[in-house]
């Protein structure tokens, strides 16, 4: 055993010594044979010949000896690798083109896989995340709706499916103390919220049921980051006070680092460690009023309980509630959605489509590499023939060639990995703001393994066919041919043409995809948004309840602020509204419409907003009928409301909505219960991609004061110049207020189309890569055949063919490759149309304009790629080519 090991180790580490000993040993044997035959009376020449015949295949014998030494695998691989490196260095252009194209495509795959790994594959950062679900309501009109607090309490008390359920709602706070007041991302949470997530405070405790009682709300749990940055990680902070919204909150807990937000629908904040403070949600008011829905549910299923079972139970509870509270609770069903689907659901399709696209790029790169390798294998025919003639087994030749392609793909992979590091950074930077889990996207171990895996697979995929084909070389024929310059068999030419066709086809698919994404993007940015996004500065302001207890105070501040803003130089108009377009706002309210009855089990609903008199003008939302709000719409005058066109069409179709009345009461009695429509404004959709605007109405801020408002300032020149004026105007009215989210409306509008832009940018990039690869492929094949047909061209020129004829001949040959390729591409793209349906906007996946444009583009590029070899063919000098023949 030990001998065996020693022997192998020597064979391995003193490899060249062992090899030369073997050579010497075999040479000795051969010489003795020769001597033997001479002694028998043969001439030396004859003796040598006889000995060589008796000797058998020399290389084969050496091979068998190596095998017998038991180290052949490693030895051979090292040998092959050394040989392969020499080959690559000897052919730098070929090697660089191969490695770069592979690096680009492998790098693109690794970068995208990093995204997929972080977003789709990595477990959510909670213990047993499979048991976490989100709980929503759903009705005929609102497919996915938040919960009503009282319903939530009943769900919590009556269910048996959940280990715990909790609810949460966004509520940012203003932290004051030292320095400028800052706005913090905050959430109101019920007790048990962290227990549901499976997280525990690192110091202190979670909220208990006591803290849900109104009056007990002045408690706070803070994030690790806030604790460290603001409080120097002071462990004595528990029991200390924080001034938030001008009120003293007692710190009862500090969450550990890595406490990630599970995501929320309404006023959503990013995933990751994006929340600074959690305050206790309190259940205040009348438990029989169940019309308002604004808290989001999350639950942890008991072990072994499926989300289907939980759903069935929750719906049974909902049915009970509908019987108990027919006014508020009828018409609702419960939705129980696994947290994972909720988090990644919307991006999954996009990511899978992108993965498909980048996979196609890799396939094209493989086809391209196989193509180049095959061209080279025919140039190497002589070398391979010699090796075969020397008795090297075919398998050995295949192995050698495969080692070369694996070396290429692994070098490509290593370089690709570097590209991926850079690419992932660029990707994360480009990602839409609402992209889930973007903080989890890194080049990590799984990505490294993936890269290694695809590099190996790529190397084998593109190397195998050329290697097998080369090993089939007939040594005799190969050697004979090689002396006359190289030619490849018909079979090989056909295979190479098929590869180019496939490349062209796949590249066409990607180009069509890129075209669709581009159209989608264009459609979205050229869409009439219903407001004017340019020259508009926006910001948010929230008035702390402690200071602004009465509605009049709130209304008064916004009235004075908008007045002073309007007076600023360069400001055309200024206003405040409960929200800005395209920011995901979708608060709804139930309604009574005078003279109309809803269908049983359903109600009238519309989005509700607040606005000051200048809001619509500042936003650039046009007035269609009636009037805007004025300063006269205040307490004491009749309740006024402005509605949008969609609402007018829905509830008062064709009758002129101005003067009509609606109410929030189920049974309005008095005149003051009614709101009168004073104006109709143009529609603004929730998101650029939304199919249509939702019915919506606005209340005058003076009649329904809201403390958290968005400010809109329309300027005549660059809106950035109004920032200082805005800050100053706020400071003059109240130095304690934090002006937050100062943004241009252009930026907001821009981020609303960031997802389609991202998709378009990536698919476009992949398509560009694909068509470049396909062009290289076409160039390779055409220039190779031009070289092969040089004698024929020479002959034709000698017989009187014009240069133009040759040019046309070659270009026609290229068209023969690319036209079928584009046809395949178009057919493929049409059959894949279903896959992208959800990603396109107002363009059919089989759009004929895009298809035609892509076909023409591909043909043009392919012709361009073959133009260079075609020129070379046309420049054929008949004398030289015929002479070399």
């Amino acid at each position, binding site marked *: 055993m030990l001998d065996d090991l020693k022997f192998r180790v020597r064979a391995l580490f003193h490899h060249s010594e062992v090899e030369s*000993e073997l050579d010497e040993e075999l040479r*000795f*044997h051969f010489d003795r044979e020769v001597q033997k035959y001479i002694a028998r009376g043969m001439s030396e020449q004859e003796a040598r010949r006889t000995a060589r015949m008796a000797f058998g*295949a020399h290389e084969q014998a050496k091979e068998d000896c190596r095998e*017998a030494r038991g180290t052949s695998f490693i030895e051979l691989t090292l040998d092959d690798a050394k040989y392969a490196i020499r080959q690559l260095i000897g052919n730098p252009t070929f090697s660089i083109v191969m490695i770069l194209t592979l690096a680009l495509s492998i790098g693109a795959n690794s970068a995208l896989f990093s995204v997929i790994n972080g977003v789709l594959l990595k477990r959510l950062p909670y213990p047993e995340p499979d048991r976490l679900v989100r709980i929503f309501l759903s009705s005929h009109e609102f497919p996915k709706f938040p919960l009503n607090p009282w319903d939530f309490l009943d769900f919590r008390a009556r269910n048996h499916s959940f280990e715990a359920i909790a609810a949460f709602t966004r509520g940012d706070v203003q932290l004051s103390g030292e320095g400028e007041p800052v706005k913090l991302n905050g959430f109101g949470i019920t007790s048990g919220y962290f227990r549901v997530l499976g997280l525990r405070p690192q110091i202190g405790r979670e909220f208990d049921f006591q803290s849900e009682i109104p009056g007990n709300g002045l408690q706070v749990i803070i994030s690790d980051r806030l604790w460290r940055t603001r409080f120097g990680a002071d462990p004595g902070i528990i029991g200390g006070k924080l001034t938030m919204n001008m009120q003293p909150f007692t710190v009862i807990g500090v969450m550990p680092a890595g406490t990630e937000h599970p995501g929320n629908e309404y006023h959503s904040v990013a995933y990751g460690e994006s929340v600074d403070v959690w305050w206790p949600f309190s259940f205040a008011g009348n438990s029989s009023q169940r019309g308002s829905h604004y808290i989001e549910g999350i639950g942890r299923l008991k072990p072994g309980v499926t989300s289907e079972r939980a759903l069935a139970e929750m719906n049974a509870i909902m049915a009970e509630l509908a019987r108990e509270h027919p006014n508020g609770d009828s018409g609702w069903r419960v939705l129980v959605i696994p947290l994972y689907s909720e988090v990644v659901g919307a991006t999954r399709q996009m990511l899978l489509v992108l993965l498909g696209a980048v996979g196609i790029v890799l396939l094209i790169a493989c086809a391209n590499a196989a193509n180049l390798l095959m061209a080279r294998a025919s140039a190497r025919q002589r070398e391979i023939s010699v090796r075969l003639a020397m008795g090297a087994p075919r398998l050995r030749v295949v192995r050698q060639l495969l080692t070369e392609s694996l070396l290429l793909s692994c070098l490509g992979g290593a370089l690709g990995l570097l590209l991926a590091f850079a690419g992932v950074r660029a990707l994360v930077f480009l990602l839409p703001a609402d992209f889930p889990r973007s903080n989890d996207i890194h080049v990590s171990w799984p990505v490294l393994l993936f890269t290694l895996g695809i590099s190996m697979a790529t190397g084998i995929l593109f190397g195998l066919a050329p290697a097998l084909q080369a090993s089939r070389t007939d040594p005799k024929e190969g050697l004979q041919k090689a002396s006359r310059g190289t030619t490849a068999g018909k079979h090989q030419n056909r295979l190479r043409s098929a590869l180019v066709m496939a490349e062209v086809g796949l590249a066409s698919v990607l180009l069509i995809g890129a075209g669709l994404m581009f159209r989608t993007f264009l459609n979205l940015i050229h869409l009439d948004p219903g407001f004017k996004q340019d020259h508009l500065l926006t910001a948010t302001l929230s008035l702390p309840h402690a200071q602004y207890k009465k509605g009049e105070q709130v209304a008064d501040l916004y009235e004075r602020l908008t007045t002073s803003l309007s007076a600023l130089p360069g400001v055309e108009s200024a206003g405040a509204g409960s929200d800005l377009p395209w920011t995901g706002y979708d608060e709804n309210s139930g309604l009574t419409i005078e003279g109309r009855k809803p269908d049983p089990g359903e109600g009238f609903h519309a989005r509700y907003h607040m606005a000051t008199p200048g809001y619509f003008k500042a936003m650039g939302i046009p007035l269609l009928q009636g009037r805007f709000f004025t300063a006269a719409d205040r307490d004491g005058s009749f309740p006024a409301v402005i509605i949008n066109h969609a609402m007018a069409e829905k509830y008062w179709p064709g009758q002129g909505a101005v003067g009509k009345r609606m109410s929030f009461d189920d049974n309005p009695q008095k005149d003051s219960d009614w709101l009168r429509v004073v104006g109709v404004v143009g529609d603004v959709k929730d998101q650029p991609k939304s199919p249509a605007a939702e019915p919506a109405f606005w209340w005058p801020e003076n009649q329904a004061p809201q403390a958290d408002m968005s400010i809109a300032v329309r300027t005549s020149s660059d809106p950035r110049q109004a920032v200082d004026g805005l800050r100053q105007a706020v400071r003059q009215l109240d130095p304690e207020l934090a002006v937050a989210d100062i943004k241009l409306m252009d930026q907001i509008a821009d981020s609303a189309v960031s997802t389609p832009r991202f998709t378009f940018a990536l698919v476009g990039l992949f398509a560009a890569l694909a068509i470049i690869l396909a062009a290289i492929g076409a160039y390779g094949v055409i220039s190779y055949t031009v070289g092969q047909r040089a004698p024929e061209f020479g002959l034709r020129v000698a017989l009187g063919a014009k240069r133009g004829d040759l040019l046309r001949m070659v270009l026609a040959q290229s068209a023969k490759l690319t036209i079928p390729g584009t046809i395949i591409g178009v057919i493929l793209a049409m059959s894949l149309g279903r896959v992208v349906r959800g990603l396109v906007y107002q363009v059919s996946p089989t759009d004929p304009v895009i298809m035609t444009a892509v076909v023409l583009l591909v043909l043009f590029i392919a012709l361009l790629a073959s133009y260079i070899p075609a020129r070379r063919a046309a420049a054929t000098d008949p004398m030289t080519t015929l002479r070399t023949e």
Partner: protein
Amino acid sequence: MTGRIELPQGTVDLLILRTLMTGPQHGWAISERVQQVSSEVLSIRQGSLYPALHRLERRGWIKAKWGSSDNNRRAKYYELTRSGHKQLETEAEAWRKLSIAVEQVLEGA
């Protein structure tokens, strides 16, 4: 050439070991000797001889040493190790049993 028999691998090993029992030899001499002793019936082709030698060496049954041959050239000499002797006994015994058994079957049938 017609009277020669191609040898299976195990038999080659046995013949090599037996040939080396009389003392160290280089590869060529081994093949010559086998041919001689077997009255030109058995011949070990070089293609199987050297791999077999390397294999036997790896197993530790033979040892290789460089020495000078009768015409003063460096040659690789193989010699039987102790475990090689044992292996030869076992294999020879097994071979005898096999050949007797085969003979009996051939006679009986």
